[in-house]
């Protein structure tokens, strides 16, 4: 058995162990059923809920909002990162703002965003976008900083123009960092949108969880919470698998 297989098994073992522990604690009354449902019931509730039109509409609303916020953050974060990298003076001026960006709770801007964009999906997209943007921007700057200067000289030796140098040398060299940015952006967009739906929204998974919570509907609340958790884990696992494949190709897996 390889080291990575052992680590994988240990990870699954710990996760399954904790689930079993919670199941036993709930079933034996150690944890009151009004506080937490047994995981098996959460799973059953989740499967049931995913067959209802109302929940599916909420899933579609949240996922489409996250997708727009995430794609916008990745594209614009990358473009701004490239531009900032090319203008060192501007970058020096903006660097301290970027460094302290995540110390500002962007949700305080929600009333302003509602005033600007109304009560539709736009303020949620804006929150998801604002949460995800700096991760991609910083990753782009870091990736471009870490391209060894000698690779740019190799490109010149092969008489590549700026566009071909970027496409054939700079981007592939910066890819590991860009990929980190993409992964983080997805996580931040997801967090931003779900939290935004919690605070003030008439739809989406965050809203549905908050509504179930206020109605003392534990079954719906835990079923949806499990679905959100699994969605985050699955998307992150898929991106991590893709990243590992990329690293293996570079002989670093």
């Amino acid at each position, binding site marked *: 058995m390889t080291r990575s297989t052992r680590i994988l098994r240990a990870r699954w073992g710990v996760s399954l162990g904790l689930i079993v522990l919670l199941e036993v604690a709930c079933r034996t009354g150690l944890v009151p059923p009004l506080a937490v449902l047994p995981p098996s019931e959460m799973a059953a509730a989740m499967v049931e809920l995913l067959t209802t039109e109302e929940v599916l509409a909420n899933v579609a609303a949240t996922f489409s909002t996250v997708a727009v916020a995430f794609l916008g953050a990745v594209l614009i974060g990358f473009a701004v990162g490239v531009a900032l990298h090319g203008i060192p003076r501007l970058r020096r001026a903006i660097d301290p703002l970027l460094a302290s960006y995540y110390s500002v709770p962007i949700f305080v801007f929600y009333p302003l965003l509602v005033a600007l964009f109304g009560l539709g999906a736009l303020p949620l997209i804006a929150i998801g976008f604002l949460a995800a943007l700096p991760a991609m921007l910083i990753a782009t700057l870091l990736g471009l900083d870490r391209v*060894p200067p*000698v*690779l740019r*000289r*190799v490109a*010149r*030796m*092969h*008489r*590549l123009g700026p566009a*071909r140098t970027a496409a*054939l*040398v700079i981007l*592939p*060299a910066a*890819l590991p960092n860009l990929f980190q940015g993409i992964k983080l952006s997805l996580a931040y967009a997801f967090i931003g949108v779900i939290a935004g739906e919690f605070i003030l929204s008439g739809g989406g998974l965050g809203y549905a969880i908050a509504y179930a919570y206020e109605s003392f509907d534990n079954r719906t609340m835990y079923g949806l919470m499990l679905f959100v958790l699994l969605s985050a884990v699955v998307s992150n696992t898929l991106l991590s698998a893709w990243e590992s494949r990329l690293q293996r*190709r*570079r*002989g*670093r897996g």
Partner: protein
Amino acid sequence: MTETAAHAVLRGVTRVYPGASQVHALGPIDLDIAKGEFFSVVGPSGCGKSTLLDVLAGLNPPSAGTIVFEGKPVAGSVPDGVGVVFQEDASFPWLTVRDNVAFGLRRLGMDAAEIARRVDYAVGFMGLADFAGAYPAQLSGGMRQRVCIARTLVLQPRLILLDEPFGALDQQTRLLMGDELLRLWRETGATVLLITHALDEAAMLSDRVGVMSSRPGRFIDLVETGWPRDRDSRIVSDAAFGAVTARLWSSLRTESMKAIGRG
């Protein structure tokens, strides 16, 4: 110098790095490198050896003077027929050995069969055939440098510029890589300019060695070794080898003292 015509000619080449604290890095340099010659440059640290290579390669323009390669002025870009091997690991980590070597040929739009033929030859020539599908991270430092040499070799350059290509390798590997380089030079008939800080390497490999002064770098001595063309690393045991390295060191010692502030 050999009797053949000059392949590259430098006249009054100077390089000054502009800025608040202007740095006069190089020159003026006058140098003729003969076609098919193996010419090495040694000099104290920071004397402008790599700057000389950069301006000769067209990677940086000279502040003054002219550089002519095969009768045409070198201005602003790497001329056709010039290949450069850098000191640092310049292999592309996202490409296999084979794709690294094929990189330049694919940019030229050559047909796939010709690319495969040339890559097979270069990979085999550099002893990398068993690693053609490997990624650089799976290779040793010496093998990665061989990948970079193969990537340059495959373009069939007529002038090969090497900037301390074996600087990061241990002594034994460097001697063996020197043999590889001599074999490459003999078989391709290319002109070679090697930048090195190792006097024994310069003495072993070269037809002629240029000794540079401390900054701004100028040639203070040109030493002809007189070695036969079919030499290899065993020449280090030749009685004349010691005399060549002694001459290089005697030219270089005062300049090296200056470079460390004791001149």
